[in-house]
């Protein structure tokens, strides 16, 4: 391979850094109106009445919409339970949309929204997932506060999903040492650097939508369902997005529906841009949970039982898939050898904001719970957790309790060792709390966590065109939000076609009118399945090119090879034809190939849930804890991942370092405080939301392992999300190693650290 593994210039780099790339916020159409959404100020209330009369009379207002303007069967089924775009009889979280206005200016729209009179009858609220399942808890839905995969809304306390192997109680009986504790995660949200925006315009019964999105056809099908129009009546444009994080899947569909509804009523184009306050109330809030962990081990550390009871708070509504993605996470329960395991997921409705995706949704908290369980017993035994993990993880060929087969890319011992060596583990690990003290008050410690995530099977298509002048373009619609997928696919294409990377001059990743059906980017699967699709297309195109070249040269097609967009005879390279010439003679011709890879048809580990493959990864960190102020600082991090094959090397390295860099703050400082009395988010702008910065956070050392994944395109393994999974676990175990005390709840803010140290 000559191009795979190199780092040619990223396809859209120049347009982005020179500001020429058109993001949705840049889209302005003549006559365009501005929309604003009226959101519930209350976390739980009955809607008695909505009076829009005064708002409608305000000069400059062009349309006011409420649930009455929605088609009754136009439910957005990408939510659990399905919902209309506006609350009907009840609001269920602070920020629940109630009405919207389109007006000539943003200011008029803001004023008009305030003129809408909504009469509410306040209801008691519940903000804690375990409390929500109690019989006397406020009922958020008539059926109860639980959501299940089998029946939708269900009586409070019904498990969403359960998996088990062996006998937990027996395992705990056999244990010499055990632990039983509850840990909790805070509310956080996706925080896109882009202003979340949608523009919608109707042409008769046909709809055009510009939206920040991480994959168009999800949004496409929602718009089709909600408005009852055909797929081909919708043109969705999303060539550049400012972030994915999972946020640009479902909440952006609500914004798109509301924008389109306003536009249809006003008969003019409409733009809605979210304020930061809206971001902190209505964007998806992932991984909110209380988790009970029970674990038992023998004196030598070998595990006898591990039980994870996950009370997952999905707020007033949950994003479908996200609510039950926990079932796939159950595979992680016995990544460390343990005969008796149990995983139960309770999906709990509360009056918090909507539960939804975040890059690596689920494993971040599940890995954390598992690692915390194991480390507590190891900590009590004084065993080096890193070394224990190195010896006790599953190996390629082993199966998890649910029959997921670990393939050759699951080389955890290589990645564990590399991550540990990367931060100098052997010289830094010490018995918990027994290390040196620095500068009078600072303690250091190291932590290691397994970082992996299954990938999700899905469908990817590409349309490949090789033009008569030899230039190459391809279209697909996985979304383009900084993940570099266009460049990675271009590398695969150039390699497979024997083309110059530079000849692939047009990569279109977000236009539904020209791209064939593609599922959105999620579940670490875009390069995996998109790669298969582009390789198949390349193979077909190459066959046509070689056939034409063979005719020109008077040789057999099977005797040809191609490199740098030139086709030549293997035995005599002086006999050659350029791609361009091959397409000009004897007549001018464009090659167009449309190719589709259906995920489930690609043979992966069929026994496993959610798509099977678990390529290895590990994160090791060193932290410093200031025992006088409670501040936790991550000094060093080493993220080691088997990528199977790094297709575009810099893009692949960016996936690894970015996942760790962005998510490490979730362990020790990132949270949205919620007013315990009213359920109102108290962070409403960037200040106070301690997102990662290049100054505050350490850039992880990246180690790339390349043990090819046999099922992947040119050996590539799924990589998008796994670097996120071990972040909290590694940081929290490092803090334990530093101070010798466990802290149950994330994030490890100074109040919790000082309390654990007995200084509050």
């Amino acid at each position, binding site marked *: 391979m000559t191009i795979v593994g190199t780092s040619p210039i990223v396809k859209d780099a120049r347009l982005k850094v020179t500001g020429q790339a058109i993001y949705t916020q840049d889209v302005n159409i003549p006559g365009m109106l501005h929309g604003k959404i009226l959101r519930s*100020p209350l976390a739980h209330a009955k809607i008695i009445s909505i009076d829009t009369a005064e708002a409608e009379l305000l000069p400059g207002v062009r349309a006011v919409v409420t649930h009455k303007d929605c088609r009754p069967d136009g439910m957005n089924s990408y939510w659990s339970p399905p919902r209309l775009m506006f609350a009907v009889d009840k609001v269920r979280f602070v920020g629940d949309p109630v009405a919207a206005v389109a007006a000539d200016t943003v*200011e008029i729209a*803001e*004023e008009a929204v*305030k003129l809408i009179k909504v009469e509410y009858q306040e209801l008691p609220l519940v*903000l*804690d997932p375990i409390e929500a399942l109690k019989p006397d808890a406020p009922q958020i839905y008539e059926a109860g506060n639980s959501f299940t995969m089998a029946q939708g809304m269900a009586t409070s306390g019904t498990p969403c999903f359960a998996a088990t192997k062996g006998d937990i109680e027996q395992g705990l009986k056999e244990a010499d040492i055990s632990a039983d504790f509850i840990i909790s995660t805070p509310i956080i949200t996706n925080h896109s650097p882009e202003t979340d925006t949608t523009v919608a315009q109707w042409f008769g019964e046909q709809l055009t939508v510009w939206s920040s999105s991480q994959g168009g056809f999800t949004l496409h099908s929602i718009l089709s369902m909600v408005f009852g129009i055909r797929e081909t009546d919708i043109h969705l444009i999303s060539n550049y997005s400012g972030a994915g994080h999972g946020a640009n899947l479902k909440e952006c569909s609500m914004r798109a529906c509301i924008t389109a509804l306003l536009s249809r009523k006003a008969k003019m184009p409409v733009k809605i841009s979210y304020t930061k*306050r809206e971001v902190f109330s209505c964007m998806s809030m992932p991984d909110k949970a209380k988790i009970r962990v029970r674990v038992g081990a023998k004196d030598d550390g070998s595990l006898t039982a591990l039980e994870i009871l996950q009370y997952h708070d999905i707020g007033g509504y949950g994003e479908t898939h996200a609510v039950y993605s926990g079932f796939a996470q159950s595979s992680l329960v016995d990544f460390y050898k343990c005969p008796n395991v149990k995983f139960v997921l309770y999906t709990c409705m509360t009056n918090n904001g909507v539960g939804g995706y975040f890059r690596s949704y689920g494993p971040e908290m599940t890995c954390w719970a598992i690692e915390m369980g194991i480390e507590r017993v190891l900590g009590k035994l004084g065993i080096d957790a890193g070394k224990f993990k190195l010896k006790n993880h599953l190996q390629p060929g082993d199966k998890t309790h649910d029959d997921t087969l670990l393939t050759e890319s699951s080389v955890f011992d290589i990645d564990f060792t590399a991550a540990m060596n990367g931060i100098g583990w052997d010289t830094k690990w010490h018995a918990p709390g027994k290390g040196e003290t620095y500068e*009078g*008050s600072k303690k250091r410690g190291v932590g290691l966590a397994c970082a992996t995530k299954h990938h999700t099977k899905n469908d990817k298509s590409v349309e490949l065109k090789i033009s008569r002048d030899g230039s190459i373009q391809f279209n697909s619609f996985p979304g383009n939000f900084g993940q570099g997928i266009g460049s990675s696919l271009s590398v695969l294409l150039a390699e497979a076609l024997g083309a110059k990377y530079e000849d692939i001059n047009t990569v279109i990743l977000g236009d539904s009118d020209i791209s064939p059906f593609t599922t959105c980017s999620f579940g670490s699967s875009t390069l995996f399945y998109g790669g298969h699709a582009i390789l198949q297309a390349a193979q077909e195109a190459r066959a046509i090119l070689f056939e034409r070249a063979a005719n020109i040269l008077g040789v057999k097609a099977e005797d040809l090879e191609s490199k740098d967009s030139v086709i030549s005879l293997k035995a005599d390279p002086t006999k050659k034809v350029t791609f361009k010439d091959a397409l000009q003679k004897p007549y001018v011709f464009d090659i167009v190939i449309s190719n589709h890879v259906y995920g489930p048809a690609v043979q992966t580990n069929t026994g496993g849930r959610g798509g099977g493959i678990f390529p290895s990864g590990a994160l090791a960190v060193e932290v410093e804890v200031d025992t*006088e*102020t*409670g*501040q936790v600082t991550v000094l060093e991090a080493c993220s080691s991942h088997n990528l199977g094959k790094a297709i575009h090397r810099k893009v692949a390295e960016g996936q690894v370092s970015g996942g760790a860099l962005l998510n490490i703050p979730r362990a020790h*400082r990132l949270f949205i*405080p*919620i*007013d*315990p*009395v*009213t359920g*109102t988010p*108290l*962070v*409403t*702008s*960037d*200040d*106070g939301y*301690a997102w990662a*910065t290049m*100054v*505050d956070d350490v850039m992880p050392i990246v180690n790339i392992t390349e043990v090819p994944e046999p099922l992947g395109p040119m050996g590539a393994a799924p990589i998008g999300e796994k670097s996120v999974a071990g972040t909290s676990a590694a940081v929290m175990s490092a803090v334990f190693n530093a101070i010798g005390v466990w802290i149950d709840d994330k994030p490890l*803010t*100074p*109040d*919790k650290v*000082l*309390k654990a140290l007995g*200084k*509050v």
Partner: protein
Amino acid sequence: MKTFEHFNANTIEEASMALESENAEAIAGGTDLLGRLKNDVLSSAMYPKTIINLKTISSLSYIKEETGILKIGALTPLSAIAADTNVQSKYSALAQAAGKTASPHLREMGTIGGNICQYNRCWYFRNPDNRFDCIRKGGNMCFAMMGDNRYHSIFGAVQGCIAVNPSDTAPALIALNAIIVTNKDAYEAENFWDYAVPGSTILAANEIVKEIQIPTPASGTKSAFQKFALRKTIDFPIVNCAVLISREDARICLNAVHNNPYRATKAEDAIKGKAIDEANAEAAGAAAVSGAIGMPGNGSNPGNKYKIQIAKTLVKRAILACK
């Protein structure tokens, strides 16, 4: 944001007259005011009808030392103060405080005058659309008292309000014994804030800060500033502290711990004339928080007793930094 009149003042006198009109407010860098306006933090009745632009008044941005007094024009940006080598060497606490305020962009825009006149921080008070009509806005309740008060006062309420003054430069000015000169009067920095109205300066409606004056410390005097926040780059302080120590005097001021900057006189007494060492600094730290109460947590709110430990530590570290 609502509509308002915007008036460019050419002189302080002009600005002062304009400020006498109903609901008029001054703007300099705007880093505090614009956020409040955009978010409709205040009730409609309190929303400014006129904004008086002070930036159009010439020659209010300067740093100069004259006859033993450092003079800083009210419109001097924080970035200029942080970068001034004379301020760095002789008025270290102020240079450090200005340099640790917010982010580079905000330090370029934000002025020293505005930094000491900014409104208090409280996420209930600042919640958009006047969501919580609290005591600070003329309501009758403090929502932080019952809600999440992890960043609030550890020295009790002022007129029922437990919001904190978030200025980084204010405690430095108090420690450095600064005088705040307005178009009407001159005040010792520690008397600049009002205890009758929560989170206010004592300025009259038409009064404008013109200049900050700081007596040049005698040789051998040292000062230092410490700030604690979740991130180094941008966050408001959870606690900060400025200390000045000369041969016979000590001045110590904490901020973000009370409605107004909190001068820790007991800590000053504890360290005055003593050797600067770990034990004495520790004792002064303990003395600084001897009156602190802190609030217990409830549910997801951890309360703010942990801030007492942080305040104690910052006082100790700021003293040791004056060694």
